[in-house]
């Protein structure tokens, strides 16, 4: 089943009186369980696509479907509910709430979602943090952890509510290459284990290599869309 579908999406940013077309007719569909990379140079429109998929923004033209449901016309407040339920985000930097511990950061989406049983919440949180290898860092604050560890917490937080779709915008851009690979490896493992759909953007060739499908962007258009077959 298609998790998400973009249909002839155009996105125009208005900078003063100038209209800047960031996306110019993008169409593709994402199947459940995919591990998909949106690749392209800086300014090619990657973040814009992820924002649209993440219901943070609305297209200027075209339609967006999440699980075959048209979300294009939903009001902003409804979009917040869609995000809360269905989508996990991992950003490039400054992912975590600085005043909360790893545990509390991961627990946060569950609380927002309205899970009231604290015991159960803690259990789920602890499990997922253990899964991302941070069993011993549950009570650290973000500033007491390395960049890689912070990004692991972010991944755990994105996944904890078992979303339909995890969106990661250049999740490795602020990490050294070894740590970056570890994060990608982790995401891939979680993708396979939980069959959660991952979409991540990158301009890094090595990061792209983890993907099972790569959509290349250039100047707001899809340059290529290829499946990569591995073992």
């Amino acid at each position, binding site marked *: 089943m298609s998790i998400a579908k973009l249909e002839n999406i155009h996105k125009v940013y208005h900078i003063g009186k100038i209209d800047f077309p960031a996306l110019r007719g993008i169409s593709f569909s994402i199947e459940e369980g995919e591990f998909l990379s949106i690749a392209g140079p800086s300014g090619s429109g990657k973040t814009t696509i992820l924002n649209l998929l993440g219901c943070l923004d609305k297209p200027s033209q075209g339609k967006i479907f999440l699980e075959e449901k048209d979300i294009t016309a939903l009001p902003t407040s409804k979009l917040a509910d869609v995000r809360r339920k269905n989508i996990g*985000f991992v950003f490039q930097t400054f992912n975590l*709430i600085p005043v*909360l511990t790893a545990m509390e950061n991961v627990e946060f989406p569950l609380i927002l979602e309205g899970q009231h049983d604290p015991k159960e919440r803690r259990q789920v949180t602890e499990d997922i943090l253990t899964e991302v290898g941070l069993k011993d860092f549950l009570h650290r604050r973000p500033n007491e952890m390395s960049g890689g560890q912070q990004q692991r917490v972010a991944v755990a937080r994105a996944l904890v509510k078992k979303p339909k779709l995890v969106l990661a915008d250049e999740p490795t851009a602020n990490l050294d290459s070894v740590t970056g690979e570890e994060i990608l490896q982790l995401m891939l493992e979680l993708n396979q284990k939980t069959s959660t759909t991952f979409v991540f953007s990158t301009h890094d060739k090595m990061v792209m290599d983890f993907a099972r499908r790569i959509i290349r962007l250039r100047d707001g258009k899809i340059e290529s869309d290829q499946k990569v077959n591995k073992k």
Partner: protein
Amino acid sequence: MKMLFKLAFRNVFRYRRRTIITFSAISYGLGLMAVGISLYNGVDTHAMDNIINSQTAHLKILAAGYFEKKDEVPLEFTIDEPQEIKSLLKNNRDIQGIESRVLFQASIISGMDELPCMGVAIEPEIDPLVFKIKDSIIDGRFLEPSESKIILGSGLARDLGLKVGDDCTLRIFFSIEDFIWNALDLEIAGIAKTENPMVNRGTVFIPLSLAQEALSLENSVTELAVRIEDRRRLLEVRESIEGRLASLSKDYEVVSFEEYASDFKELMRMRSRMQALIPLMMILIATLGIVNTMLMAVMERTREIGMLAAMGMRKMEVMLVFIFEGALIGIFGSFAACVIGGLGGWWLEAKGFSLAFLGEEIAEMVSFLPMEVYKGDLTAGTLIFTFILGTVISILASLYPAYKAVKLDPIQALRHVG
């Protein structure tokens, strides 16, 4: 909800510098306000008490016509049978004391110096029931009936360089315009320093019989000063006195201290209008402090706000985090304000301060209030008011920054670098 509160709570402690600035704005601003209110209340009640205790008593019985001309200290509106009135009111349980007095214009001459003053002829054995002159003798002793001695206000004595035991000349005016006067050479029995600087600066007390003789008044007096047991019953007592006096053939008027001191009342009213500005300014300072620091908080945490929004946090929830934050700082600050206000108010109430540190003469010039010592009056109400005000202000002042926070477009906020 608990989560939002936890977030707010932690933020309060994380951004310490900002918290401290806001906290200080509230605690100092409102603390000083509380001290100011205490002082103001104190001045209000004590100044009135001082006037009552040294000048007006609670009620004055005057011959009809006197009150209108009271500023001229006339001698032609007299009460000719004070004893009759006294016995008429003898059975009134509300009355603590009634004293016959004569007020007259006078001056004191010592060597080459002469200073004008208010002459007050008193009944030394009754005066302590009505006024507090006797308690304020700082040197020498109080008057005895029908002796030929005087008591000088402390300021007057100082300005003339007179001490207890010195002789001086008291010039008693029948009429200032016509310059008709009588002079008496008298010894100073005591120096009075009341709580009321106006009295200390320009009053001389002499025994009633001496004044009546010097002014050829026979048994007449210019006023009967009445002190009552319970000030709250002022109106009733006044009415009952008026009722009693109606049976007499001559017309009298009964005047309360508030009417008698109406000039002072007016002064206080003007002052209170001016002083209302001070708390308002303090409130403004505290409000601006909070708005400013909370706006800084919103700017500083732009990305965090974007992230919270991306995670699907509702606008109301984001707002609440900031409002809680402001409210928390406000509550802490208000608490500290109450401590500052409480300590300051308590000190003012217990000790008070005098302007004497400016030097006695400057102090006399700048002090236009009938108070030697500025004493405060701290009430629980003041502290509760301060606390509630501080809390309400900080919540209100957080509204705008919180609104700013949710107005942020999450996409822009996330792109925000920093």
